[in-house]
């Protein structure tokens, strides 16, 4: 139930977590707040922000920590379920989770290093391609004159 073409997003600085199915970037490792969450299939991380996400419908679920309103979190590129997002927490002590995302460790993998790419400013600019200083006209002409058989010093007018 998507609504149009969306560009896939990329995180520029490693280390990052990516979708295990399609390798789409999901979250920065720095944005992980806690690694001690429990997901449906084992360990899970609580994270501040995600990219390339698609959210499902809001549902009320009774979790180990109480009643919450959550929505499923899908990878936008391949539609795999990655975890969920906390929309509302009904217990005061759980409020800190609101607006944050849980990523199941089994659904993501870590990318330690990204390939480096040339930045814009280091591409050759137009001016650097110009010839530094052309040889003098006289030198070019005298070479040509030799080629066509005119000897230096010979008067051209006499021909």
């Amino acid at each position: 139930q998507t609504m149009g073409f969306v560009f896939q997003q990329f995180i520029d600085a490693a280390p990052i977590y990516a979708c295990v199915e399609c390798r789409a970037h999901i979250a920065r490792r720095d944005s992980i707040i806690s690694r001690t969450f429990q997901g449906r299939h084992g360990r899970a991380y609580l994270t501040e922000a995600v990219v390339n996400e698609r959210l499902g419908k809001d549902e009320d679920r009774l979790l180990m920590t109480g009643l919450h309103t959550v929505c499923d979190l899908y990878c936008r590129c391949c539609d795999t379920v990655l975890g969920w997002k906390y929309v509302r927490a009904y217990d005061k002590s759980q409020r800190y989770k609101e607006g944050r995302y849980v990523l199941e460790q089994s659904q993501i993998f870590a990318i330690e290093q990204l390939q480096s790419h040339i930045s814009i400013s280091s591409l050759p600019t137009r001016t650097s391609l110009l010839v530094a200083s052309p040889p003098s006209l006289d030198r070019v002409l005298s070479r040509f004159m030799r080629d066509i058989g005119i000897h230096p010093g010979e008067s051209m007018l006499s021909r």
Partner: protein
Amino acid sequence: MTNSRGSAGQLTAADARNEGSPDLNGNGSTADARDSQSPPPDTGATNGRDTAALADTSDTLLKRYPGQEQETQRICLRDSQFEEEQVVRLLLQELHDRGFTDTFNQLQRESGFTLENEPVSQFRNSVLAGEWSKVKDSLSTIGIQTPDNLNAALFLIKRQQFLELLEARQLKQALLVLQNELSTLTNDIQQLHRLSGLLMCPSVEDLRTAADWDGSSGRSRFVVLESLQTYISPGSMVPVHRMETLFGQALAYQCDACKYHVRPANQGLYIDHMCPTSVFPQELQFSLKGHQDEVWYVAFSPDGRYLASGSRDKTCIIWSMSDFSIVHRFNGHQNEVAYIAWSPNSKYIVSASSDRTLRLWDVEDGTQMQVFSGHEETVTSCKWLGTNDRFISGGLDHRIIIWDINGTIVKQISSPRVHDLAVSSDCSLLLVADEKTDIHAYDLTTLTFMYSLNEPVEVMSMALSADARYCITGLRNGELHMWDLDTRTLVRDFSGHTQGQYVIRCTFAGQDDRLVATGSEDGLLFVWNRNTGQLLARLRGHTKTINVCTWSDKAAALATSSDDKTICIWPAYRGAPSHRPDSTDDLSTSDDDDDESHADDKSMVSGAHSTTSIDMF
């Protein structure tokens, strides 16, 4: 009974009644001139006040043309803000150029003005005859203002002489000219080097191509004359085809002022050009159904006969614009198709997909010709490079690749992640909209970086005008900006539509890219006048977000595609010659020889199209 220039401009009713003079008729006045040696006889209806004014006029006329026999008293019918000398000399130039020599001479005699004085016409004739020594001598007599201009003019003349000597294979004379004369006239070393390089040309044909010069017997001497015009004062030598230039400017002004400009100006000189409201696209001609999912790209073929569409359903469809049927359905991509580019000869399309490949399809056969693998992420944009064998693609993998249609990579460039590409029609400029907020301009011939334009938020789509002067960018925050690439400034903002994180493409439309159009998340197509920024129309024909809109001069129509799986065609001319079924006839018959059954098409519900409306402004 006649009006003299001295009196007020209005003809009174009495004058009009008595106006039997054949002044309005060209033949009449000539007859008068020939017959009478004296002013035309006063008829009784002349008012007293006119006589005095008439006498005044004849005195001034005599002063104006000293030594000129006043054969007839020339009466000018109305005042003009333009100087008579200039108007007459322009007329003389037109008459001369069009070969009306009798009238030309007559007008010179009758008005007392000449098109060119003697030195100038001698100069012109010697340039056209190639008599270079005469030309050089007369250069000082034709009214060149400054020594710099004199040198520049002399350089142009000597260059032509140099080329003509090379053409005649008088290499030593040519060398003399180059060494002794050309080198002293300019400081432009590059230019001198280029000219000396021409000495090496083995044949006359090579010389002509290398120098971009068509020979002494071609137009080159006229071209030299035209370029000399900039150095000679226009008073001595009227700029060539000046009246035509002025007419052209007037026409350009009228076109600029034309609000709905979708038709070329072909109404002639008697009436001002203005596209009437009725020719503006406002009627939904046809709604094309055939895709099974959101349609993400649509493009007309350059010859206007076909429309290609790419969709989230991983296929491309070629539609015929004559009967709106499906011509081909191209299957092959493993993932959604987000971009399509037509080859200049309208025979092939290249489609780009999030399956990281591009595919080349033959529109005549309906076959897949080639798969291009090389991108490591979604390919977001592709454009042909002017010829039918090369195109360029950009992806989210930091790569821009120039491909040959046989599948090989011609060049791979490292770049920012590409959201959109634009190539100028002469293939000298490449614009790249990156994933952040910038647009980078590259010189495509040397592949060097030129400049960047900065936007405040992410650029979702970009379009370049045909003259490569303007580019429009659609932004994530719903703004549509227009940049002037000559000055590199933001010149206009278009608003009214909604756009967010979903890519909605914008385009130029109309005659000479006069209109700007974009879709919107509310399902409306917005069309603005590019020059005034005024919203011209909001067209409703889709039920969901319009993703792409495109215009074709040849097909004279706008096409829009939407998330509601359909494509709408909006023709520009009312009563277009092509078949126009009524809008409830919504199925396109499929001619393809695919194995897949398309029975699903008939049962597909894609949104009501019985309500189409348009707000015109």
